[in-house]
Structure formats: structure tokens, C-alpha cells
């Protein structure tokens, strides 16, 4: 499994919180496999990138992270 440096871990946690708040991302508590969560999160990143018209990569790149850090409304962009 990839070893994530400290800064990236912070960014990942920030992104996860963002996706939970605004893109209905739910971390599967029971998941044994980290990779399953990462796939689901990647899917949600893709959804967010598509919403904002960013390049859809599913990766938490700087452009995506920067958009996540913009001041915004608290209402979700997508609903379950």
C-alpha cells in the first residue's frame, strides 16, 4: 500500500471531509481494504471535478484541492 507523507495525509483528510459534506461520500467503516475506500473516494473526486468543470482524473491534484479550499456555501452539491 502507498505510504502517504504527512502533508498529503492532511490534504486527503481535508478532501475526505469536503466530499462527505458536499458530495455524499461515506467512508465504509466496515471496509477491511483501504483500497475500496480509495476507489469510492476517487469516484467522488471525479464527480466533484466534473461538477466544477475541472479535468476529471479522480486524483486529488492541486487544482482540485485548490477548488475545495475556496470559500463556499454549506449546502451539498449533490444529495443522496
Amino acid at each position: 500500500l502507498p505510504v502517504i507523507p504527512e502533508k498529503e495525509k492532511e490534504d486527503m483528510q481535508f478532501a475526505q471531509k469536503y466530499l462527505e459534506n458536499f458530495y455524499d461520500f461515506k467512508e465504509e467503516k466496515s471496509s477491511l481494504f483501504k483500497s475500496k475506500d480509495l476507489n469510492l473516494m476517487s469516484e467522488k473526486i471525479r464527480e466533484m471535478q466534473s461538477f466544477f468543470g475541472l479535468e476529471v482524473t479522480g486524483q486529488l491534484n492541486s487544482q482540485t484541492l485548490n477548488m475545495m479550499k475556496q470559500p463556499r456555501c454549506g449546502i451539498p452539491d449533490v444529495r443522496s
Partner: protein
Amino acid sequence: YSTFPLSPKWNKEDVTYRILNYTPDMLQEDVEEAIAKAFQLWSSVTPLRFIRLYSGEADIMISFASGFHGDFYSFDGPGGTLAHAYHPGKGIGGDAHFDEDENWTKFTTYSGFNLFLVAAHELGHSLGLGHSNVFGALMYPVYMGKDTRDYRLHQDDIDGIQSLYGPPKESPTKAFPPQEPTERTTTVAPSEMPPHEEPTEMTPTKLPARPEDCDPHLTFDAITTLRGEILFFKDNYVWRKSPYFTDIEHDTISSFWPSLAGGFDAAYEVDKKDQVMFFKDDQYWAVNGYNIQLGFPKPIQSLGFPRNVRKIDAAVHDQSTKKTYFFVGHRYWSFNENTQSMERGYPRKIAADFHGIYHVVDAALQKNGHFYFFHGSKQYEVDAKTKKLVRIMKSNSWFDC
């Protein structure tokens, strides 16, 4: 654009709102103006009217709070989430909350968030809109610090809200001209509202069909100038004659001033203050463009009328002498706008001072150095200096019939 699941919306045209508290970042009147202008954006493209309540439960309760504030969506300190609002419904439905940890401002600067812009976005949610992925739309989820002067909704926002409520009954296609760039005088300080007297909102008046522009029997309730334009009022209808566009525009009072209902008795403009006064029964309102000034309505007695005067027929302000003439029956008062007091020796007979004006005055206007007194379907042009009758015309001569 998007709406919430099952597209909840208000099933009525009169939606009430109440401002529960204020951010210390701004003057209270600036908060009220920002919110009123935010509502005005939406009322100008829908049939909705927004009426402010000062107590009790309103449909849309507006408040500032930080961190945890009693719902499931706590705020997160400076930056990040700025505000949120709930879709139409009972209880918390429609309510809008603003994060007090942000720095709120009425300007468009980098040192704070413009309350008008954020409020307009959140009120979109209060009316049933979700987020839009159209960059530049008001309902785009990310804050965009745009210039708010003459701010206009994006077509996507209009399409979205009209998918819920439809277009306004009569849609004003052009905004009022901005105020002339003269030095802005301070707003009239709001007088203390007597404690027992709840500030009331106008009650909407039934809406008969709009008469034809060139109806030979057309009469008006009130007429005034406004920033170089002329507004003719009848019931809730407005005819707008402007040097900025050729045709007569057809609007409603509620599309300019959502919380004012039709049936004005009189109106006049004090152009030096960029102020228009509206009279209905024994109350009057002062507006600057779209904004109703704080502390109104006020009783007409506060202008100096005796108790037995329950309403006025017409009013006109003489821009050269700074006197305002109020017409009641066959008499008139003269009000000094500089001293804000009635002049001695009034009321006087209208016919004694205005040659040829023997009737009650329905509406009055000053333009091009002349007064125009409207009675029934006629208007009497009088020289403002000599007060001599110049000619008599049809009341709708201004509409190029």
C-alpha cells in the same frame, strides 16, 4: 441549475422573512439593505413578494451564528463554509444562517465577504434552488466576489427559479438608472417607532386588469419623477416613461418594491436627496431607488398634518423652491423640505393660488418648469413660477397616443 429532491417550493406568492439578529461587522441598516436587495433580485423575476416581519414566526428566518448553532451543520470558523439555508418548508424550512466567524461587508473587497451576494445565494436555497454548475451563476457553490452595483441574475438562475415559480406577472426588463454621482446626503435618521405601534407592512390590494395606455378615460392614483424618469401609478400597475429607452414600460409596484402594495394616494421626488415618497392612507414611505428607508412607514401626522387629515390626494415637490405641495380636497399645504416643517398660513385654497385649478387634484407632477395637475382623464399644465394655467391635455398625453 438544480432543485431539491421533489422540488419543494412555497405554495403562495407572499413569503415573509424576519432578520433575527445582526452581525457586528456591518451597520444594521446595511445588513437590512443587503438582505432586501437580495430578495429584490428574486422578486424581480418571479411572482413572489417578500414581506418583512419584525416579530413572530416568518417563513424565512435569517440569523448569524458561529460553530454549533442548533442544527446538524455547524459552521467551521473563518473561511470554508460561509452560510447555508434550508429549502422551503415548515419550521427550519427556508431559514438562512450566516457564519458569524466570517467578516461580512457591504463592499466587494478581499478583506471580507459581501453579504448581499451570499444572502442572494442562500435565499435562492430558501426558495427551492439547489446549486448550479454554471460558472458565473449566482447559485454556483463557490463564493465569487463580484461587483454588486446593478448586479443581475445569470440566465441559469432565472431559468431555475422560474422553473419553480414562473415569471413575474409583469416583468420589469430594465433596472432603475443608478443615482446621479452627486454627493450622497445622509439617510433621514429613523424616528423612534412608538413602542405600542408594531411596524406594519402594506396590505396588498386586489388587482383589476391594467387599462390600455391610450384609454381616453385613463386616470392615475399618483405620479412622480424618479432619477430622470416618470412613473405613473394606478392600483398595482406602473407605467414608466424613461429618456433611457423609447417605449413605455409596464411594471407593477411589487416588482420594484416588494413590500409595498398598490393603491398609492400620492408620490413625489426630492431629487437632491435621491428620495421618493409614497403616500397611502395615513402613512408614507421613503425609498432610494429600490431600497425602502429604515423606520418607514411613518404617520402623515409626523409631517405636520392635523389629526383630521386621514389621507392626501396628491403631492408635488418644486425642485427650485424646495417646497412640497400637498393637496387635500380643495386645499393645499406647503411643506419646506429644508426645515422639514409645514409653512405658516396653510392650508390655502388651491384655486386661489393655482390659476384654473378648480377641481380636486388626483395626481401631480413637476417637469420642465411646469406643474401638471391630473384630475380624472385630464391634466392641467401650469407654469411653476407664475402659477398660470398654460393648457389642458388628456392625462395620457405622455404616452404618445
